[in-house]
């Protein structure tokens, strides 16, 4: 039997400064010891998780409208599963591939049991898993950042039940996966045991997040701040070095991958990481976000359409926390999330940056946490600030009355709006035209195997399952103009196409794609599903008798 010195092996002996304050003079709760064995935490988190999964999962295939990007990522996940490489068209370093590699792994078993289930609507179910894990991580992170139990629960509710979250987290977006990894990284960085390998793990999770969606890169400084605050000064240099090294080394695997494939730098006849990055960095801007009428303004409005509380109050909360840094314990504990929100907000305010609709996804958990934290701060100020034992009972009652009034007012504003959002999410059937169009293509076309059809990415997998040839038979519509490997199989341009499934996305983008536009112009609708802007038309191309 051997051991180190017992006087010091007792973990309580060097009870050094906690990164976040332990129970303060007003009985403010410190970070919990072990959440796993805390029954109230488990019950609260479990109940909220069930509620979130029900609201997010119910009707998940039919709402919101299938997005083109979802189709892209799932189709690439399908290509990975089928052993066709990282994409069924040439992989051109548009995004790091780790995101859809994870999707491929997540959908592996269902796709094996029933290959036809590998469609966007069905496979949205796996996003429930991702949302569930993220929601739990928000709770755990909240607790680790010294939020009281109710506030951590509030954060989880804000994150999981905001109508904006419900819409965006249902969709198969890489951002949702990246958010999960980022949350894991923050949770590990804030580990109460301050274990070297937890920080190392935080770095690995952060790198995974970046390789899932490269925009997570901008969040890393906030993660670093969190790790700094939660490490002990005696072991800090090792812990942080470990985190940074792990993150950097795993991150470098992406350029290494390109290097091994001989595609790091541009050259003739092959794609390159360099070009991919340059494309992303020089994407045409969508205008200033506060400039009425710009693309970014529209994106902002589309977020606020679903929910104003989380984005606006969350942003205000972040600013409040950053402003009260010097006085507020909560503000310092939540420095990481508040800084994340600040960074993301600053980037969104670039004069002419490219602002995609999913941009807000990566901010959602941090908005939720800072909003919950600010609420806790306000609650603390109302209920406990400058309170002592000698305080008159009427004053104490007054405090509780004020707190109750504030809580009621907030609920009165939020609950009806969120109730409407949730009801829309669980009842609306937004994808009926898509499903009908895909059924039509599967049953009414005589010879799918030799038919060439332009579709948007969201429907692509449906038609693959219906017997069309993936890639050159059923074609992502923009590849007909942008991918040399596809255009060279269309020497006669639009005449080599038999059908166009003109969904809103196809009609919107066709104006910049000559081949697609020509195919639409030289075709007649043979079936139309839905009405107005959202209709899906199946158009047969008039090839004027020519044979291929």
């Amino acid at each position, binding site marked *: 039997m051997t051991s180190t*010195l017992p006087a010091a092996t007792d973990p309580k002996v060097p009870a*050094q400064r906690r990164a976040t304050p332990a129970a303060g003079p007003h009985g403010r709760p410190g970070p919990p010891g072990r959440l796993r064995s805390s029954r109230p935490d488990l019950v609260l988190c479990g109940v909220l998780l069930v509620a979130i999964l029900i609201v997010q999962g119910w009707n998940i295939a039919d709402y919101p409208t299938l997005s083109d990007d979802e189709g892209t990522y799932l189709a690439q996940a399908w290509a990975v599963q089928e052993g066709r490489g990282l994409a069924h068209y040439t992989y051109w370093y548009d995004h790091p591939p780790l995101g859809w590699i994870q999707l491929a792994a997540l959908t592996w078993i269902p796709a094996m049991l029933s290959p036809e289930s590998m469609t966007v609507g069905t496979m949205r179910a796996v996003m429930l898993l991702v949302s569930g894990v993220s929601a739990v991580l928000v709770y755990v992170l909240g607790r680790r950042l010294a939020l009281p139990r109710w506030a951590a629960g509030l954060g989880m509710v804000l994150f999981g039940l905001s109508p904006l979250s419900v819409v965006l987290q249902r969709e198969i977006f890489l951002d949702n996966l990246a958010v999960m990894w980022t949350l894991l990284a923050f949770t590990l960085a804030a580990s109460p045991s301050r274990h070297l390998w937890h920080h190392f793990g935080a770095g690995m999770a952060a790198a995974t997040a970046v390789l899932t969606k490269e925009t997570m890169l901008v969040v890393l400084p906030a993660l670093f701040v969190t790790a700094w605050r939660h490490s002990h000064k005696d072991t800090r240099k090792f812990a942080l070095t470990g985190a940074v090294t792990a993150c950097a080394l795993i991150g470098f695997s992406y350029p290494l991958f390109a290097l091994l494939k001989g595609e790091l730098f541009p050259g003739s006849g092959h794609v390159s990481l360099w070009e991919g990055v340059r494309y992303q960095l020089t994407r045409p801007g969508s205008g200033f976000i506060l400039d009425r009428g710009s693309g970014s303004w529209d994106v902002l409005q589309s977020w606020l359409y679903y929910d104003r509380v989380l984005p606006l109050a969350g942003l205000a909360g972040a600013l409040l926390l950053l402003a009260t840094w010097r006085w507020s314990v909560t503000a310092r504990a939540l420095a990481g999330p508040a800084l994340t929100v600040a960074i993301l907000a600053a980037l969104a305010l670039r004069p002419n940056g490219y602002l995609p609709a999913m941009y807000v996804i990566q901010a959602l958990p941090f908005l939720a946490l800072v909003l919950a934290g600010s609420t806790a701060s306000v609650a603390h100020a109302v209920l406990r600030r400058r309170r002592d034992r000698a305080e008159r009972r009427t004053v104490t009652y007054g405090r509780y009355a004020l707190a109750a009034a504030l809580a009621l007012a907030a609920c009165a504003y939020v609950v009806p709006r969120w109730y409407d959002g949730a009801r829309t999410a669980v009842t609306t059937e937004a994808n009926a035209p898509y499903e009908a169009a895909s059924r039509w293509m599967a049953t009414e076309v005589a010879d799918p195997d030799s038919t060439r059809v332009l579709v948007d990415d969201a429907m692509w997998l449906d038609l693959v399952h219906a017997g069309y040839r993936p890639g050159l038979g059923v074609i992502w519509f923009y590849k007909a103009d942008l991918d040399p490997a596809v255009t060279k199989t269309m020497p006669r341009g639009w005449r080599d196409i038999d059908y166009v499934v003109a969904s809103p996305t196809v009609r919107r983008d066709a104006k910049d794609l000559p081949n697609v536009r020509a195919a639409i112009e030289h075709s007649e609708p043979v079936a139309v599903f839905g009405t107005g802007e959202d209709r899906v038309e199946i158009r047969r191309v008039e090839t004027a008798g020519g044979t291929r």
Partner: protein
Amino acid sequence: MLTSVFIAVVSLALFWMAAFTLWWQMHAWRTPEVLASTRFSSPDGGEHLSFSLLLPARHEQAVLDHTVRRLLESSHTDFEIIVIVGHDDPETAAVAEAAAGRDPRVRVVVDTHEKKNKPKAMNTALPHCRGDVVGVFDAEDQVHPELLAHVDHAFRSTGADVVQGGVQLINFHSSWYSLRNCLEYFFWFRSRLHLHAQKGFIPLGGNTVFVRTAVLREAGGWDPDCLAEDCDLGVRLSSVGRKVVVAYDSDMVTREETPGSLVSLLKQRTRWNQGFLQVYRKKDWKQLPTFGQRMLARYTLMTPFLQAFTGLIIPLNVAIALFLDVPVSIAFITFLPAVTALVTFVFEVVGLHDFGKQYGLRVRFVHYLKLIVGGPFYQVLLAGAAVRAVWREQRGRTDWELTAHVGAHIDAPGVTREDVPA
């Protein structure tokens, strides 16, 4: 295909080896609590144990007097110093006798073995020990005056049979290899050894090691034929379940110097490796009760050879990944050991910074540079020592190659011979 599988298997094996080594190397810094637990706890003022401090000295007249004087400055009240000199070494004997004449706490024991080595010398002195605890130091060690009081407290508060204190090479600025050598000691005594103590299998160091006299006599003292008698003693004691405690305080470590030349470092390392090999083949470690302990023992005793192997394979592996036509996934796997090596490198840089901080030494940019650039060359040296050790053991050459030392860590000038760090 076969090549790919082979490369993948080798790479993954190397990866796990390097990862485990790294994990153990970083043991002390895993959490702030672990770090705090590696220190001596403060003595309570009571002193109940008596010490017999063994000081084997061979042709070390230049530093011996200084070492004895410093040991006599210890704050502990109950100890004796037994200087062990050879019958063929009158100069050192004279210094020792002079010291004994000055202070009754110093005694001299003469070793009359025809072929001399350190374990034989210490076994000669063992019957003369009167103290409850036998401590071992080397003739050129600088010992902290408070050390004995702390060790006394450690024995009493833990009920340990063995207490191992820290040993640290200090002269990192002397050369590129002494920099790495110092850092090796830093990671070993600061961190790794504590893991061994915790797991119940420990190769002890060569000095600043304290054993209860009764336990040591029961174990039959040191193995006179083993080239790493210190490691062997630790393995034998922990294999029969003796409790070993390790404590490290930067101001309480015994300070030493690195070997004076590359050749002597190579010889020293060869001897240790050969000693580890001997300890491995003695199979005392097979008595360890749990499978995990036996694996740790096996791995630790084989480390020099695995290390040599790793050092040679990693560059080869990377070359294969870059220049041979293997699938991208396999190429990725071949990079895994290199990645672990890189992480180790980074932690070494941080370790050097911490070393400088702990010892109040100024580590300059050029030292970090030397650390990094010297890394591969040091690997070559280690690999050379490992190969040499195997070769010598095969040929049955088990004599001691002594290492020459200059007193770079103390003011006393002159060339001395020393034969046991760590």
